[in-house]
C-alpha cells in the first residue's frame, strides 16, 4: 500500500461521502453549542473538492491533492471550518512537497503540519473544546506509532483512534474558542462539532489506505 496521489484522492472522496452521511449529526452538534451549520459547511466544502478532483482529474502527488482541498475549503465552507481546515490542508500540502508517496516520517510531518496550521489560524490550545482536541492526540499517536515502526496504514489507524478518543474527551469541556465560547459553562456536556468532523476525516484516511492494501 502506498500513500500516493490515488490514496489522497480516495481520502477526499471517502471524506465527502461520510461527511454527507453525517451532515445531520454534525449540524445537530453545532446546534447545541454553535449555529447549526457545521454539517452543511463541511458538506459544501468536501462535495466541492470531489467535484474539482473529478473534473480536473487526480493530481500527480498527495501534496497537489491537499492543495486542491485547501483552496476549495477556503473558498466554499463559509464558516470557521473553512479557514481552519483550509489552512490545515495548505500546510499539509507544503509538508508533502513533491513526494509521490508519503513514507511514515512524511506522513507524521504532514499530520503535524496540518495541526500546526489549525493552531496558527485559530490559536486554540488543547482543552479549549475545538477540533484541536481531536487533532493533537491524533498527531501525538501518529508520532508514537511511527517511532514504533508502524506502517503508514498503522500510523493512520493510531491517529484516527486517538482523534475519536479526543472527540469523546471534548464533552465535559468548557469552550474557550469559537462560537461555543459565547456559551461559557453552558457549552459543557456536548461534543465539539469540529472535533467530530476531524475524527470522521481521519477515519476516511484509514479507509482510503486500506482500500489500496
Amino acid at each position, binding site marked *: 500500500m502506498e500513500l500516493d496521489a490515488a490514496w489522497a484522492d480516495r481520502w477526499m472522496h471517502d471524506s465527502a461521502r461520510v461527511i454527507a452521511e453525517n451532515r445531520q449529526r454534525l449540524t445537530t452538534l453545532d446546534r447545541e453549542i454553535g*449555529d447549526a*451549520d457545521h454539517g452543511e*459547511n463541511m458538506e459544501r466544502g468536501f462535495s466541492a473538492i470531489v467535484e474539482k478532483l473529478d473534473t480536473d482529474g487526480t493530481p500527480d502527488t498527495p501534496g497537489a491533492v491537499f492543495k486542491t482541498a485547501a483552496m476549495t475549503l*477556503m*473558498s*466554499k*465552507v*463559509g*464558516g*470557521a471550518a*473553512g*479557514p*481552519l481546515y*483550509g*489552512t490545515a490542508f495548505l500546510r499539509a500540502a507544503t509538508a508533502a512537497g513533491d513526494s509521490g508517496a508519503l513514507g511514515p516520517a512524511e506522513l507524521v510531518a504532514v499530520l503535524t503540519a496540518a495541526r500546526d496550521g489549525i493552531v496558527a*489560524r*485559530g490559536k486554540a490550545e488543547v482543552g479549549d473544546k475545538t477540533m484541536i482536541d481531536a487533532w493533537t492526540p491524533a498527531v501525538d499517536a501518529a508520532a508514537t506509532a511511527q517511532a514504533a515502526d508502524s506502517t503508514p496504514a498503522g500510523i493512520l489507524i493510531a491517529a484516527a483512534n486517538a482523534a475519536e478518543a479526543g472527540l469523546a474527551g471534548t464533552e465535559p469541556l468548557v469552550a474557550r*474558542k*469559537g*462560537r461555543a465560547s459565547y456559551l461559557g459553562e453552558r457549552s459543557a456536556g456536548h461534543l465539539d462539532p469540529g472535533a467530530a468532523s476531524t475524527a470522521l476525516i481521519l477515519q476516511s484516511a484509514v479507509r482510503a489506505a486500506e482500500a489500496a492494501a
Partner: protein
Amino acid sequence: MSVGLVIVSHSAKLAEGVCELAAQMAADVRLAAAGGTDDGGIGTSLEKIQAGIAETDQGDGAVLLTDLGSAVMTAEMAMEFLDPEQQERVRMANAPLVEGAVAAAVSAQTGKSLAEVLSAAESAGASY
C-alpha cells in the same frame, strides 16, 4: 485618495448597512461590503473579501473590520494571499465592527494615514 475600508461580516445586510452608515460621514471614502457567503447565505466569503480589498486599496491601503471570530480567520487568509507589497498596506482592525467602521471612515475622510485610520477604529472600542 484615502485609505479604504472593507466590512467583513457573516451577513450581507449587516455589511451593507455598516457601509451605508459609515458613508454618511465619509462621502469620499471607498467602502466595500464583504458580507455573507458566495451563494448568499450567512457566513464569510474569501472571494468577497479579496474583491473588497482590490476595490478599496488604490494605493493608500485598506483597513478590514470584522464581526465574529470566523470572519477574522477568513480575513487573515485573504491578507496572507496578497502579494507582499500590498500586504504592507492592508491591516485588520481589532475593533467593534460598527463603531470602529464609523470612526475609521471619518478618519479616512479627513485624509489620515493607514496607521491613523487603524488607530481611530481601534480606539472606538474604548468608549464603552
